[in-house]
């Protein structure tokens, strides 16, 4: 499936008119992207390190996961909206950027992993889940989101 048409459309959209014409607006949106990245990363790190028994051992992992999931969702929404806006400024360039696709693929994996696997599984009482399943869940989650963030930063360098 060739998605070029999507990028061509984005490149001529209203968003692109704004993001290309006003460097200041682009910068402000990028700041929201960065701040919500900090929040999403913080939620991932805290909940996964709790599942690994590294942080907040005296707080039940169910409580930690429940509280972090909510803000993870908020941060993800802001990241996606600001991300689409930022993409519109350089849509066609991004289409031919390998790092961009590396990020998009890991992001997709991350979202599916989070909402289709991790969240439903962790709804159960954690003591009934195999500890190794919990640990591999946490390690996978940390690796996936680190890759998303790192490849995202690297779009700018490549």
């Amino acid at each position, binding site marked *: 499936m060739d998605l070029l048409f999507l990028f061509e459309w984005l490149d001529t959209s209203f968003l692109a008119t704004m993001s290309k014409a006003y460097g200041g607006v682009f*910068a402000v949106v990028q700041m929201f992207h*960065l701040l919500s990245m900090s929040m*999403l990363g*913080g939620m991932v790190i*805290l909940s996964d390190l709790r599942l690994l028994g590294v942080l907040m051992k*005296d707080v039940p992992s169910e*409580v930690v996961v429940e509280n972090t999931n909510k803000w993870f969702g908020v941060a993800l929404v802001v990241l996606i909206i600001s991300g689409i806006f930022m993409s519109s400024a350089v849509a066609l360039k991004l289409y031919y950027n390998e790092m961009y696709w590396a990020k998009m693929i890991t992001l997709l994996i991350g979202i599916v992993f989070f909402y289709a696997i991790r969240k439903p599984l962790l709804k159960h009482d954690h003591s009934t889940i195999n500890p190794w399943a919990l640990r591999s869940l946490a390690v996978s989650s940390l690796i996936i989101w680190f890759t998303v963030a790192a490849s995202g930063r690297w779009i700018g360098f490549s």
Partner: protein
Amino acid sequence: MLTGGSSAILNELLLDLARYLDSFEWSTALHESYYMYPWIETTHVLTLMVFLGMLCIIDLRMLSLAFKDTPASVIAERLDKPMMIGFAVMVITGFILYFAIPVRTTQSIWFRIKVVLLIAAGINALLFRNRMRESVHTWDTAARAPKRIRVGAMLSLGFWAGVVVTGRTIAYDWYDCHKELPNFMYWAAGCVDELAALQ
């Protein structure tokens, strides 16, 4: 407010220091390196998730927006260590990034605002810690923290967001010294040579 004379001396001193750092071979090598500089910069940015992430969770607890049923002191104490580890990494990588591009950074209005915000955030954090220590036993398990604590948490989020934002804008060249700027900006960014040329 600094008077014209003393601010000029301060700006000269800062620029001299920056030029001294810039004279090191290592500084140039780092700036021009193909992978090293991007890796250090990436580490600096990604560690935000550790430092600001943990800080965010602590402040959200104080604003009763997360972990309402967990004692505030538990959140603050357990997350203190990872937060400080993140902070240490950010300070170290931050100094290396400054060392790689000392002159332009010294004369960046954004970097200067960032340093001021860092100091403000630091003072706020110290006051916040003291207030926590004095009063936390009276409200620890309450979902809603006292007003003083909530104000501190909001200021903390605001200052640190400002630090991130101004950190990011250092990369933009909108107000670099070589551009034509209002006199006030030359003064604020410490564009020593440009100011001298005006006189």
